[in-house]
């Protein structure tokens, strides 16, 4: 692997770029990490309704200090608020929304994404790890559009966008679009296709750090 590119998007810019692709009126489920940042970048002229799988639509930002309720939390178990129009529901209803195709967009993190859309994001496969899956498999099985936002490579420089996932799968053929600090990339029937490059990044830069062929921008 070559040295990491000096240019490219920050975490916040990645979140902002994802936010551009979320249409007005969408019901959206955001994963933990960079996906959580997306809500603050949705353009003001759009109304986006956030679902949290522990049981609420209409989730708002974290409460002011001292104003929170330990029983009003998001899927990351952090305190949140309920916006006007919010609703609470039990877990079977919450996952009926997910599995039943009622959620428009899910934004997840990733350990690996393959060029056929396979996603691995729940297990590092290490023998002494405590296996934990949460709602990731339900989200990628049932949500209409599954977006992944992730660093382009692992901390030790290995590509996360690969020909075949070597880690345990979360879902088969489920990812629609990938956002990294270098580029926006679609998963198509022909494989990975570049949609947009971050400033200062070239197709060659991205290809060098991608473990499968990358088709040029259409």
């Amino acid at each position, binding site marked *: 692997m070559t040295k990491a590119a000096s240019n490219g998007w920050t975490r916040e810019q990645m979140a902002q770029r994802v936010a551009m692709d979320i249409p007005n009126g969408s019901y959206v489920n955001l994963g933990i990490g960079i996906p959580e940042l997306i809500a603050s970048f949705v353009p003001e002229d759009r109304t986006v309704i956030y679902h949290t*799988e522990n049981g609420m639509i209409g989730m708002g930002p974290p409460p002011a200090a001292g104003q929170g309720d330990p029983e009003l*939390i998001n899927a990351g*178990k952090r305190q949140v608020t309920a916006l006007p129009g919010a609703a*609470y529901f*039990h*877990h079977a209803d919450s996952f009926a929304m997910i*599995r039943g195709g009622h959620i428009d967009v899910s934004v997840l993190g990733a350990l690996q994404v393959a060029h056929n859309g396979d996603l691995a994001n729940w297990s590092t496969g290490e023998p002494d790890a405590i296996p934990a899956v949460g709602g990731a*498999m*339900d989200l990628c099985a049932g949500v209409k559009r599954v977006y992944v936002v992730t660093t382009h490579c692992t901390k030790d420089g290995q590509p996360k966008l690969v020909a075949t996932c070597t880690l345990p799968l979360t*879902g088969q053929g489920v990812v629609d679009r990938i956002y990294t600090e270098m580029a926006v990339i679609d998963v198509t029937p022909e494989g990975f296709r570049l949609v947009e490059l971050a400033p200062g990044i070239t197709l060659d830069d991205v290809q060098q750090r991608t473990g499968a062929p990358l088709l040029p921008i259409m």
Partner: protein
Amino acid sequence: MLQKFYPNVHEAVADVFNGAVVMVGGFGESGSPIELIHALIDQGARDLTVVSNNCGSGEVGLAALFKAGRVRKIICSFPRTANSTVFPELYRAGKCELELTPQGTLAERIRAGGAGIPGFYTPTAVGTPLAEGKEVRTFNGRPYILEHALRADFALIKGRAADTHGNVVYNKTARNFGPIMAMAAEITIVQAQRVVPAGEIDPETVVTPGIFVQRVVEVALPAHESELIKAGATYP
């Protein structure tokens, strides 16, 4: 006259037996019935199979039940959270069995159990390690796996208010697994901040109808797991 009102948490869990399957409501600390769990620790039942989304934090509530060595098997979706050390240690030492289930599949297995449905096909987990050994069937060209319903001997649930007929309302996202676990257990025990006479909860606002609830007990000021942990508390 219905006899659903119990004067304290200890009497409410007195007949939980060794080897029982116990569903425990809550997602993290939200909705975790800590006082009922602590009463269960005092009561002493062991070899329990617990069905709950997580395995607790610190050494209070659900984590304390594990710490006391009462749980033979856990069926859950996410057995580790911040501050959770008790279950990982037991699991690595081979002292507690884990059945890992995707969160939505866990919820639907519980709902199905309560609704008289023995199994169902779901697209969740197809092609993953959690589908290994499960029947696959194709509907409209898409593969689904067979999952089996879950039922329990007891369910421990936290509500905001309950009436003497067992009707329950919840607090915000603390509702989570409460309504479906109430359906899936032979004996559902609800701890509520207020237990009120029948008629005080508007029937239009009831979330869990009383037919699914056998026992209600008032815990006016329930503890919050995060606050207990911050205070350095352990149980017992």
